[in-house]
Each structure stands twice: as structure tokens, then as C-alpha cells.
């Protein structure tokens, strides 16, 4: 590392030149696809007073939707981290017939139109469906309750966790585990003190992605949620409702709150991650 600290210092010694061009293309794309649409959200709100904004976003019914959306997404992301690690582990560490198929199936939630997933899950988990009827016998209703919302969110979130962890696991040399075993660590100790710390940053990324996706998910959740105000109404639905009533500023206000939530979660997780990385590097 040299003493030069200019932020845009060109790396003259880079093998592939073209920093200017590639940076330009990157910024243009980023602006067109992310920054300008986000900024236009604010533009819709330019005639809105803060009092109006606050009335919409702090409305009792809207507050209830935040609670439902965030708690369901949180639970779903936690479940996904546990099962995602397990799934990634099974896929990377064991050789068994059908492994590739299983590997491919994990991406199904990405590929399937979310509405299709939502309708299928609703049918299966309703008290008349194959799975739902089993749970109904013990008095548990899944479709049209927050449990159903959580299940839909688990479904759409799982690939994020698996795909975040998989590459790390693949690179993780089994020799570490062998070394731990040789040095006298038990199986649990090996997992929790050797493997898990390596996986933690990736698991956190997976958690953040799955959580952010679940909070914003509309298509699949809306079918399985009963959409009853205060009980099973999610925030994206209330945004859609405001749009259906041609109330663009109100919809945008709530959307803005969602953006802030997601940003805070992603920011917090990044912070945590950099801390963990520092600990891992021992600095």
C-alpha cells in the first residue's frame, strides 16, 4: 500500500484498462435503474406536508401492518438461516444421487412467478388442503393467518440464504475440521467454533437479503394472507390499496417508510458483518 490516498486514484498498473468507461456505464445504469426511480418516490411527495405524511404512515391500521410484515419477515428469515445452512451443508458436503436436482430446486422460488407460488401454498395449507388439513386436526390454521404469511416468506427467502452460504462452504477446507478433531474438539465444538464462525458473515448476508425480500413481497403473500385489517394485512397490500384508490402520495409515503426500514436493516447487518470480519481477521 502506498501513501497515495486520493479516492479516485486510477490504477495505472491494472492489467485491464478502462476504469473511466466502466465506471461511467456503472453509474449510468445505477442511476437509471435504482437512483432515479427512488428519487422519483420523493418527487411524488413534494406537495405533501409533513403532517399529512405522518397521518398516513402513523395511522393505526398502517402501524399494525408494519408489525405484521416485520415480525413475519423476521421469523421467516430466522427459520431460513437455520434451514438454509442445513440445506447448503447437505448439498456441498455430501454426494448423493439427485444432489444436482436438489441444488436446482432451491432456485425454484426465484423462477416461479410469485403469484403461482402463493396460490399453490394457499391451496396446500388451507384447512381443506393436503398439508393444511393435517394441521387442522390439531387445531392449527395456516392459510389466512400470520403463520401462512410466514410460510410464504420462508418459501421466497430460502434461496437467498442457501446461495449466500454455499460458496463459502465450498471453499471451506475440510482440513480445518479434521485439524479440530485431531486437536481434540468434539463434533459440536468443531461445528460451533470452527465452521460456524466462517459461515456467519455469509449467513448474515443471507438473512438480510431474505428479510428485505420478505418485507417487500406482495405477489405470493397476498394470496395466503387473509388480508384482514389489524390481523393479517401486510404493508405492501396497504400500499396497493392506496394505489387502487388513486391515492399516490399516501402509497408513496408508506413506501418510503418501507425503504427506510429495509435500509436500516441492511445497514445494521453490514455494520455487524464488518465487526465480525474484523474479529475474524484478528485486528
Amino acid at each position, binding site marked *: 500500500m502506498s501513501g497515495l490516498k486520493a479516492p479516485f486514484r486510477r490504477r495505472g498498473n491494472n492489467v485491464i484498462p478502462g476504469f473511466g468507461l466502466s465506471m461511467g456505464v456503472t453509474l449510468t445504469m445505477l442511476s437509471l435503474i435504482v437512483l432515479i426511480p427512488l428519487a422519483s418516490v420523493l418527487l411524488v411527495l413534494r406537495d405533501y406536508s409533513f403532517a399529512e405524511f405522518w397521518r398516513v404512515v402513523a395511522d393505526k391500521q398502517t402501524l399494525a401492518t408494519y408489525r405484521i410484515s416485520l415480525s413475519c419477515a423476521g421469523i421467516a428469515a430466522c427459520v431460513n438461516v437455520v434451514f438454509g445452512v442445513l440445506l447448503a451443508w447437505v448439498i456441498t458436503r455430501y454426494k448423493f444421487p439427485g*444432489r444436482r436436482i436438489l441444488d436446482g430446486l432451491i432456485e425454484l422460488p426465484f423462477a416461479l412467478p410469485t403469484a403461482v407460488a402463493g396460490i399453490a401454498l394457499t*391451496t396446500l395449507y388451507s384447512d381443506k388442503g393436503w398439508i393444511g388439513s393435517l394441521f387442522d386436526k390439531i387445531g392449527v390454521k395456516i392459510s389466512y393467518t400470520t403463520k401462512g404469511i410466514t410460510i410464504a416468506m420462508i418459501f421466497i427467502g430460502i434461496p437467498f440464504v442457501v446461495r449466500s452460504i454455499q460458496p463459502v462452504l465450498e471453499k471451506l477446507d475440510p482440513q480445518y475440521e479434521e485439524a479440530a478433531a485431531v486437536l481434540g474438539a468434539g463434533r459440536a465444538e468443531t461445528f460451533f467454533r470452527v465452521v460456524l464462525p466462517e459461515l456467519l458473515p455469509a449467513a448474515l448476508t443471507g438473512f438480510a437479503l431474505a428479510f428485505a425480500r420478505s418485507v417487500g413481497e406482495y405477489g405470493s403473500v397476498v*394470496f395466503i394472507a387473509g388480508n384482514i385489517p389489524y390481523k393479517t394485512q401486510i404493508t405492501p397490500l396497504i400500499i396497493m390499496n392506496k394505489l387502487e384508490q*388513486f*391515492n399516490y402520495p399516501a402509497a408513496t409515503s408508506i413506501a418510503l417508510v418501507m425503504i427506510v426500514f429495509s435500509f436500516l436493516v441492511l445497514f445494521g447487518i453490514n455494520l455487524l458483518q464488518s465487526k465480525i470480519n474484523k474479529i475474524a481477521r484478528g485486528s
Partner: protein
Amino acid sequence: MKKSILSKTTAAALGAFLLIAALPGCSGGGAVNTSGNTASADASNPTPAGAAKEPAAAPKSVSITNVSYDPTRELYERYNKLFQEYWLKEKGQEVEITQSHGGSGKQARSVIEGNEADVVTLALEGDVDEIRKAGLIDEGWVKRLDKESAPYTSTIVFLVRKGNPKNIKDWDDIVKSGIEVITPDPKSSGGARWNFLAAWAFSNQQNGGDEEKNKEFMKALYSNVTVLDSGARGSTTTFVENGQGDVLLAWENEAFLSQKEHPGDFEIVTPSLSILAQPSVAVVDANVKKHGTEEVATAYLQYLYSDEAQRLEGQNDYRPSNPDILKEFGDTFDLNIKLVNIDDDFGGWEAATEKFFADGAIFDQIYKR
């Protein structure tokens, strides 16, 4: 060992495939289908002699887009064929009609946001009027066509399970405790607003106009609602395919359709009082001027009032607006039902929306805690 893993993975894969296979007839919003195939007809069909003689010969084919709402899918599929034949005979011109369906409010919004519909055929006058407010439809569109621009009407009825096990006869039966009601969310669904207003009108009649009692009635009704889907088709699916609830508040035509698709599983109960639902149709002036389709688009809507089309609407379980043809369907529809209507009993859509469905209005108050 290996064998058991194999069977487990196959089971997992099988499970996932079954998940896909278990899909019921998905009717996601905004499906588009095009009827008529002008391209091949053009190639094989030289200019008709008659058309060529005219000085300003109309193009051999024209295409229009009809943006409609959910339950009209089957109706317009058949009507488009009828109109294509009529227009070919009348003008020697092929018409290609692109059809789009979805929740009425959503469809209106898509037109406002640039979906270049030539005509809209939506569930609510209010939705069409939003397009007017955006400047795409001229003022006074309601009066441009007969019967307030509503060529067919419908009403709200109850769909119950076979044998009517909960003995549901009228609105006051469905507010009783222990009855599960399925209806869409009036915030997002045009059909749901008709449901709400019909129930309100019944209560209003029972309680002699006491608003507080009406609110209590509606509160009792909506506390029985177990699933509040975002659109009418969603509610039908919830009730019919997923077996939820004891009674579905439905468009009459949707109720008939469910009955036809599942013969013997459901019964239709017509309440003593309901509401005259007038789905509105209009030419989108700004778009037809741009496309040069004013003539054919206007004819497309006017032909909805012709005897043939009115009969077709009756066959698709919409009530024809022509009283003579409606009488021909006396066996299908309960013509004795007392129908209130939006203009006389609720002061029009704008007033009704303001009073019942705006943020913080009566519908929100019902759920307020």
C-alpha cells in the same frame, strides 16, 4: 443407506413437483389474449373489390384494445367473435381485439399510466371517471351511450354450499355469529364495493335509516369475514377452490359461472334486496384519436346494445339492459329482487366513495379498534 437418501431426495423432488401440479386454474391479473388473426388473413385475402372502389379505402384490418375487469373474461371472448363477424360484414374490415383483464381499479390505473386502451369496460363508473380526470376521456362520457353507458348490469347474490347447510336466506342471516363470509376488500375491489353497499342498503331499510345501527350491522358482517381478498376472482377462488367460508358475496354472473364449473356443489341464494351493479363502458378518446380507431371503437361499444349482443350477455349471466331481452332470461334471473341503485340511493359514486371507502371513512371505522 444410499437407498434411503435416494428415496428421500426423490420424495423431496416429487413434493416440489406436486406443489406445481397442485396449482388450480390460476387467473392472475392482467392476462392478455388476442383474438382474431389478421396477419394470415391479409396474406391470403386480396383486397375485396368493394373496398377498393371507395375513394378513401379503409385499411383492411384494424386492431383495438379492450381493457376490462376480471369476471368479463368469458363474455368478451365470445362477444369479440360476434363483433368481428359483424364488422367484417358491415365494413369489410378485419378487427383484431386485444383483451386485458384484472382488478377494475388496477386496470383503470394502467390506462392512466399509458396502457393504450381504445375502449375500457370496467366494473365501476368511478374507475372510468378516474381516466376522464386524467384527461384521456372526454367530459360527459356517461351520456354518450344508452343506459348511462351500462349495456349490461348485474347484481350481488349469495353463493352457498350445496344444500345451504347454514340456512342462509337474506342479509340478516349472514351477520349471525358463526357464519363465515367471503368477500373481497372494498379498498381494492370494485365488486366488493357493490357488496358493501348492497348490505348497507338492506340494513338501512331494516333500521329505517339509522346510520349508527347500519354501522353496527356492517361491523357484525365484516367481523364474520374470514378472508378479504384483493379482488373478486380471488374471493371466488378462496370460496370455491380452497373451501373457505359458508357464503360468498358475489357478482351474479360469477356465481352462475362457479355453479356451471362445479355442477351440484353450490347454490345461489338471491337476497330480498340487492344493488343494481352497472359496469361502465367508454371509448378512451385520447387513444382512439392517436390510433385512428374512433369509428370501430365506438361501434364496438354500441354493438353491445344490439339484440344479438344483449342475448349473448344474458347467456353469460349478465342482465341485458334491454328490458325485452331481459324478460327472455326470466328463468335464469330472479327478476323480482328489489334493486337499489347507486345514483338514487347513494348519490352517485363520488359521494359513496367519499362516505364509505375513503381513508378514515365508514369502512375503516368498522375495523377501527
